[in-house]
């Protein structure tokens, strides 16, 4: 087996990036893995109502080789491409990655900027870690052939750990929760820490539902409230800072959304927007009035807490049917590790995106258009 060229080999000098990204979707015990020529996609889901997805771009790795075999199955003919897809134990994968650097003296997750509001990224480097010592480390992911285990090899000084994760066949029903990109009615970009703080705050009263309420015309422009718990209802409102909106006459602000949700964030700042948001676009369809409100199971939203804590930014999107997408951006490049990466690896910013999608709770009164979502 070792003689043959493996289908897939990827080497990373920093398993911590992989760990940080993957633990965001660690809410499920198993994950579906798909290997493509651009990167690896890990997805986890629960009961088809919440889905978490991590795409590890090949730029995150120091070397990335994908050799699709020439022998093709009939099933692969539709795209003429072969992308191995299988299920592995996510908890085992995470536990294995944790072995890497297990005897580092400093806790890797200790916040390195104590004064900052933002729960900082797991420190890629700080005054107490010496990146030079990390040079002789590597983490290799390998997949030899169809049906073989996914092997993870961690090499450190004197120790080599090999973990072979049994790969299970993906059950064909794996399906993404559909987000209608052409029917996005809400798009909010802000620092992920704000969302994390809000959800943590609301979680204190253990509510059953989270209601997101957004309006471009009247205050509160953005409010998250938790309800249905044993205690009273609580609400977090993202307010407008006093100074910035003193003499700005309230004027309705509308903008047609671009269907690709990418970096048009800094284009223009809406006047009627909470201070914390970088982008605040709310355009409800006329049937809804000026305010969008949608409820989600709080326990499901909480599954994204780890991603909220690890990420720098979050893009909150909602479509006409109420499907909520939280797209998190984790930027690994605020440490110095990238600069000393051996072999002249990419110094360009290493960014990972973690996507969460949630199916809304049906409102008894106006459930129109949502009921057929999963059919």
């Amino acid at each position, binding site marked *: 087996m070792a003689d043959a060229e493996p289908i897939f080999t990827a080497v990373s000098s920093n398993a911590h990036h992989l760990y940080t990204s993957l633990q965001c979707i660690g809410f499920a*015990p198993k994950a579906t893995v798909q290997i493509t020529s651009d990167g690896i996609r890990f997805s986890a889901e629960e009961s088809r109502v919440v889905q978490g997805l991590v795409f590890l771009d090949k730029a995150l790795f120091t070397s990335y080789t994908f050799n699709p075999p020439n022998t093709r199955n009939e099933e692969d003919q539709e795209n003429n491409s072969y992308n191995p897809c299988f299920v*592995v*134990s996510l*908890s*085992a994968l995470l*536990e*294995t990655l*944790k*072995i890497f650097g*297990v*005897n580092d003296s400093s806790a890797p997750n200790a916040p390195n900027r104590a004064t900052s509001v933002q729960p900082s990224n797991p420190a890629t480097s700080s005054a107490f870690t010496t990146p030079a010592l990390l040079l002789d480390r590597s983490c290799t992911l390998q997949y030899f052939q169809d049906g073989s*285990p996914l092997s993870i090899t961690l090499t450190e000084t*004197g*120790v*080599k*750990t*090999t*973990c*072979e*994760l*049994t790969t299970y066949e993906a059950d064909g029903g794996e399906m993404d929760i559909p987000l209608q990109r052409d029917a996005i009615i809400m798009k909010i970009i802000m620092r992920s820490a704000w969302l994390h703080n809000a959800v943590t705050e609301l979680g204190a009263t253990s509510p059953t539902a989270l209601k997101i309420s957004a309006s471009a015309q009247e205050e509160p422009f953005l409010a998250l409230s938790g309800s249905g718990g044993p205690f009273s209802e609580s609400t977090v409102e993202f307010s407008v800072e006093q100074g910035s909106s003193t003499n700005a006459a309230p004027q309705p602000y509308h903008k047609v959304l671009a269907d690709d949700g990418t970096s048009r964030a800094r284009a223009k700042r809406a006047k009627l927007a909470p201070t914390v948001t970088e982008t605040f676009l709310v355009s409800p369809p006329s049937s809804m009035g000026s305010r969008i409100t949608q409820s989600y199971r709080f326990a499901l939203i909480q599954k994204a807490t780890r991603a909220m804590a690890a990420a720098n930014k979050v893009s909150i999107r909602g479509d006409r049917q109420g499907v909520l997408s939280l797209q998190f951006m984790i930027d690994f490049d605020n440490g110095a590790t990238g600069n000393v990466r051996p072999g002249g690896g990419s110094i360009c910013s290493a960014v990972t995106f973690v996507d969460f999608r949630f199916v809304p709770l049906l409102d008894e009164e106006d459930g129109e258009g949502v009921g057929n979502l999963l059919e």
Partner: protein
Amino acid sequence: MRFRSQLTNIATFTKLTASLSSLGKVCWMRLEDGVVRFTIIPDQGTQVWAQLPVDAIFEENTYFLEANSGVVNLEVPVGALHRALRSAAGATTAQIRLTKKGNIPLLALTVLASSWTAGSNALGVTDADRPGQGPPERSGPRERETLIVQEIPVKVLHESAIDGLHEPRCRDPDVHIILPSLIQLKSISERFTKLATDATATSGSVTGLGASSPRLELSANMHGSLRLAIATDSLRISSVWTDLVNPPLDPGQLSQTEIEQLPSERMRALSDNDEAAWAKVRIDGKDWGRVLSVGRLSPKVVACFVHETALILYVYLPGSWNGEDSCLTYYINSYAA
């Protein structure tokens, strides 16, 4: 029967009792002239036979022992001893002695500690009723002496009670090797154990009542490699350490021909690619984790593998590497496959 001594190396003694207490509740403490022994024989799991020179933990000049047979044998609740010693951290002096309260024999630990008060006088009492009269030298923190006496009830063991206790004997080991950092070994072992526990938990109760902790497979060869492995349905994981040392045997104790006949020399002759060159034992993951807690003493550890039978660890405390007489010996049985 009398015994008393000043403690000299409280930190070491504390750590020693901590790692002993993780393996068993009671410990047989045998005090002799010049040597102290600690032995733990649990119902199940790893046995420890430790032997320390008196000066490793006691101050030799103050070590006073009086008994008819010249030996004092005590059954000590090692957890209680450990907790008592913890209060001696940072002590100026500490003394331990065998005494009696009524009919109960005790080990009394007397700790003299000094600390700085936060307040302006030794007792931390504010004298508000005498405003302005405080002499200037009374302001500011002061040193305060604290006397702590900890009493640990023990049992004095009669010679007949310990006659039947013998250190286990094993055949000559197949492989002997110096272990890597126990701290690292412990953290990796714990991850493995956790991985295997998680895996069995998620795969449902197929095995039903087999609530035992997972078995780690530990193996080593005479070419400086140590392997730790575990396998479950969902994964197979192994860590391999290389470039470790297989310590040479003391030629002063064995003749050249005797050395050549040892199983370890036969194992050395085998190529390191050969699976037969690996001596293997299967050990209980949780028990192994407790054994490795001795790593806090940062010792040198020689592991002796008796293939499919037992693992014996010789733990040498730092500073006593050459001293033959300061050694903790752990006997771990191998489980059947």
